[in-house]
């Protein structure tokens, strides 16, 4: 029997496979037993009620997708009343994703969701920081550090910081999150993209732009996961374009301790189950004792990160 369990800053998961925020909800329990997952991760909520973006909120781009759901939210009250209790029936740890447009609001929400039944808080700092120039907190190291300090002070639960690919400073942002108090990094959110219908000359999303997810995102998010694992000492949870066991193995080798599966669940609702079974089989075939024998085993010749970054730019 191979050991699929991993440890994310003290939180033990029975396997390293969990859903990505916004691509998972209670409804999936109608398709398979959610107890099989390594963790449950809820859609990002905000404190107050929000409507989300205009439709269409989704479109297809060459084997991947764009979304501009925005963050429709019923608010923290409804969340604590309905969503958290639903997940109490499972032993699987519950991770709650939150967001806020100001550090204040964000921190308040963070303490409000620090309740029994919540095992960790994922802070979606890819959302706009409206106190500065409307750019996501996680675009710059300084705003990342500032908001993480505030969030750290607001809860004793493990804090997972979810980074954005819309930055040129991934290692610096990762270090800023660690210094600000993050216990783990979720790498990464979607990358800002666009598609236009050439017949109507309208953007395919009601919101004009949206986030790219699915297979096209994988090489970008994998690079970020690798950079973050090297740049920090905290666990990295890889996320972006995972749809097969091979994708998961690639992330683990790159240095991720666990992974999140997003868009793939839209294509195959049981994708995560297939991946968990497949990972177990693959490890057994390779004669490995467990997932932990795979994590961070990339043979990279210990190249200096800065040099690597410089030289890779064409």
């Amino acid at each position, binding site marked *: 029997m191979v050991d699929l369990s991993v440890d994310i800053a003290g939180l033990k998961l029975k396997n390293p496979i969990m859903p990505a925020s916004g691509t998972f909800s209670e409804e999936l329990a109608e*398709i398979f037993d959610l107890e099989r997952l390594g963790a449950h991760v809820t859609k990002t909520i905000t404190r107050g009620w929000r409507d989300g973006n205009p439709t269409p909120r*989704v479109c297809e781009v060459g084997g991947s997708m764009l979304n501009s759901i925005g963050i429709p939210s019923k608010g923290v009250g409804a969340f604590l009343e309905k969503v958290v209790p639903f997940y109490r029936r499972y032993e699987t740890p519950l991770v709650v994703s939150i967001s806020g447009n100001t550090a204040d609001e964000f921190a308040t929400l963070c303490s409000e969701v620090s309740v029994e039944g919540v095992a960790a808080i994922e802070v979606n700092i890819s959302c706009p920081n409206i106190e500065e120039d409307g750019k996501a907190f996680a675009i710059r190291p300084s705003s990342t550090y500032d908001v993480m300090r505030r969030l750290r002070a607001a809860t004793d639960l493990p804090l997972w910081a979810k980074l954005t690919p819309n930055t040129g400073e991934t290692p610096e942002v990762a270090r800023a999150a660690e210094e600000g108090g993050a216990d783990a990094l979720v790498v990464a959110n979607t990358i800002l993209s666009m598609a236009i219908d050439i017949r109507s000359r309208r953007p395919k999303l009601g919101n004009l732009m949206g986030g790219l997810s699915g297979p096209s995102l994988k090489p970008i998010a994998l690079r970020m996961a690798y950079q973050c694992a090297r740049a920090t000492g905290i666990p990295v949870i890889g996320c972006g374009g995972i749809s097969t066991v091979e994708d998961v193995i690639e992330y683990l080798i790159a240095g991720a301790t666990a992974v999140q599966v997003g868009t793939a*669940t839209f294509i195959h*609702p049981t994708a995560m189950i*297939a991946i968990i079974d497949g990972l177990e089989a693959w490890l057994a075939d390779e004669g490995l004792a467990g997932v932990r024998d795979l994590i961070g085993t990339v043979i990279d010749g210990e190249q200096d990160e800065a040099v690597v970054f410089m030289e890779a730019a064409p």
Partner: protein
Amino acid sequence: MMGVREKIMPVQQEISFKAFEMGLAVKSNDPVNGEYRKLVLDAPAGLLARCRAGQFFHLLCPQSGGETPYLRRPMSIYGFYPQSGELHFLYKVTGAGTRALAALSSGERLNVLGPLGVPFTIADHWQDLVLVARGVGLATLAPLALEAQRLGRRLTAICSARHPDYLMSTGYFADLGADVITLTDAEGTSDPDNLERVIEGLVAAGRADAFYTCGSNRMLRLLQTIGARHGIPGQIALEQQMACGIGMCHCCVRPFNRGDKQVHLRVCREGPVFDMMEAIAW
């Protein structure tokens, strides 16, 4: 690689599985007329037993001709026949996904996810049903005729099309004992004024306890007006771009009037069938 997908999952204590992902064999896939095709799949009895009129399946269209549709495509259940073990879809070829469907030949497998969504309902006191359909809307409304027959209700099917050649399913409705009224652009009978006259006639004759419709904005407005005028309820099946199809992603919302508020509801989950009076024309 993904072979475990069709494995049977252990039953959970409190939640029972409602929708299934499975590969079904194609029995036939033939053109109905220039624009529409009918796809017949071989489906297990257990799956067909769960199907209801108004629900849909989310279809994983295969790669075809260099095109690779990525997201699933929602398709209404056009017919489900537990006796013959068949699941039917009626579809219009519009883009990459439906082109890929059109390329399927007998014996090939199609991965389907369903049945999904909220079906039509027929209240006990709705004895005379009126169904108003145009184009591919028929695909969604057709199984309602079966259900009406099963429950012993009378049904009038108003079928509208560009041209008499494009009228579909009229024989199907007639066979199920429905009164069929056909209206076409070519004959100049499908304009809103005439449609209104036809429906008002049914109302006057006491043949309209509830309306059922689908898709068209113009028809929705008209039926809402007539419904409000006479206090006649109705249901409408709506469409929206979807990703997950099961309620997780909130891609597929539409606005509805509920009381004095506007609410956003998911077409895949709270729909695709909605209260006709709450729907908002777009």
